[in-house]
């Protein structure tokens, strides 16, 4: 089995760029990743691309070939869609392709254009990650669905909105030096609690913003990296994916995310590590409660224990396992289809010491990226390790 190395990373700024097309955003991120890797577009054998709602947002389907063209790659290209886990799934497929020996050089990335849809339009677009018949027609929104999970969590394990607010405060603080982040402003617990409610018990500051942006990484085989003298010291050593029923009402749990648990267990076994080995994590915090559910599913906390982690300082940049040092979806921004690969890029940069928060955390050797789709009916987890 070929070892998969991350040879380069690239990201656009995440934020509000309603006039920029998806192809322009991906061209910027993809070219940055290729340049960072020192790989020629002509060497890329396949583009794996994640996007959720191009049809709704910019009247564009069949985005794979379009995105390959945008970065000067003349090779097959495939779009993957798994709601907000779209590019996490693209990573997984790329990893498998390198491992089987089928490919040596792949460009993996994602894009989402969202702010041009406006708040109501984006709320509608995101809602279609839920079950149309039984959820959307009942007034379900994406924040609404996570609010249902948050209330169920409080009922099962205790805790309240103040505990959640600490997650938002932490992630905003983490984003301060991240030049790609949408929000680079500190917030307070009181600001989070006093913000307008979106879907009670979640308010504006419990929610990630609506974001435009793109991300990309170049994945190569170890053999290609050595043959070409690439600086690629980080490997993707574990990959996992889990699934669950689409509609919340059909799940066994409202306050747990078994799809993430399955993805994590598979990825850890694949890498030959345990949760105890994880030194840093980027997790899918589309809402504050989502980060709590994620760190519990990753085995970093037992069910019911994750809620207080930010409040206790354990997941801050000073804690034992810092979570979302880039600011997370909450402050870095969440251009849906770009998020999974952006997380992979952030962990890579943390392991190579080139991340804006590297000075805070020093040398790290093992990190995980956790990407979730919908109310976690899809989830991917990838383990990255320093190997050279």
């Amino acid at each position: 089995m070929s070892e998969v190395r991350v040879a380069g990373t690239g990201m656009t700024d995440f934020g509000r760029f309603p006039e920029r097309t998806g192809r322009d955003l991906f061209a910027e991120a993809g070219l940055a990743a290729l340049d960072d890797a020192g790989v020629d577009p002509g060497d890329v054998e396949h583009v794996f691309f994640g996007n959720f709602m191009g049809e709704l947002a910019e009247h564009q389907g069949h985005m794979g070939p379009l995105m390959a063209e945008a970065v000067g790659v003349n090779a097959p290209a495939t779009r993957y869609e798994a709601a907000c886990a779209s590019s996490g799934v693209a990573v997984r497929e790329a990893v498998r392709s390198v491992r089987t020996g089928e490919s040596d050089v792949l460009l993996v990335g994602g894009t989402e254009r969202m702010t041009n849809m406006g708040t109501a339009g984006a709320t509608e677009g995101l809602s279609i990650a839920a079950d149309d018949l039984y959820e959307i027609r009942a007034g379900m929104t994406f924040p609404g669905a996570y609010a249902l999970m948050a209330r169920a969590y409080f009922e099962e394990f205790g805790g309240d909105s103040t505990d959640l607010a600490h997650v938002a405060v932490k992630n905003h603080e983490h984003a301060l030096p991240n030049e790609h982040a949408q929000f680079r402003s500190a917030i307070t617990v009181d600001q989070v609690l006093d913000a307008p409610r979106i879907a009670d018990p979640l308010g504006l500051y419990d929610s990630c913003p609506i974001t435009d942006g793109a991300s990309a990484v170049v994945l190569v085989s170890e053999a290609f990296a050595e043959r070409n003298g690439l600086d690629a010291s980080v490997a993707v050593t574990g990959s996992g994916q889990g699934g669950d029923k689409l509609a919340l009402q059909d799940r066994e749990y409202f306050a747990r995310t078994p799809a993430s648990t399955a993805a994590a267990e598979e990825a850890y076994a694949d890498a030959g590590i345990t949760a105890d080995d994880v030194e840093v994590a980027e997790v899918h915090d589309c809402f504050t409660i989502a980060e709590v559910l994620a760190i519990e599913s990753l085995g970093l906390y037992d069910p019911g224990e994750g809620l207080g982690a930010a409040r206790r300082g354990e997941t801050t940049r000073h804690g034992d396992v810092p979570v979302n040092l880039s600011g997370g979806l909450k402050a870095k921004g969440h251009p849906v289809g770009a998020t999974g690969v952006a997380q992979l890029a952030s962990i890579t940069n943390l392991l190579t010491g080139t991340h804006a928060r590297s000075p805070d955390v020093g040398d790290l050797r093992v990190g995980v990226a956790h990407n979730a789709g919908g109310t976690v009916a899809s989830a991917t987890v990838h383990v990255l390790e320093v190997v050279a």
Partner: protein
Amino acid sequence: MSGDERDGEAGGSERVRDAGFDDLLDAIEAGEGHYLRCSNDHGSLPPRRVCPHCGDRDLTERPLPDSGTVSTYTVVAVPTPQFADDAPYVTAVVDFGTVRLTGVVDADPEAVETGMTVGVTVGTSETTGDRLVRFVPR
């Protein structure tokens, strides 16, 4: 492509009927709501050919209990455009035993709590007039 109903104004054209789902709404309106039960006693909602919990294909219609209890709920303040005039409203997941349904609770948001007993009915969105599952406190 010929003209017909597809030429209706955006958002104004009538929905095509969804077999199973619309049948269920009709049944609930008539006071005869049902769900599907497999031979292992798992519940699910139509349209379905396979039990989502165990894969059993022997599904039979069973009467939906007259009332259920609120498992979890939220007060939606920022809706989709289809619910613009409805907000704020309460969306809840209600437990009817072996099956759960998601819908809008016809009650003041302040009055809703987990564990409360509600009956099920079919109402309409104030914004679009589209039918939807509604819960009425008992």
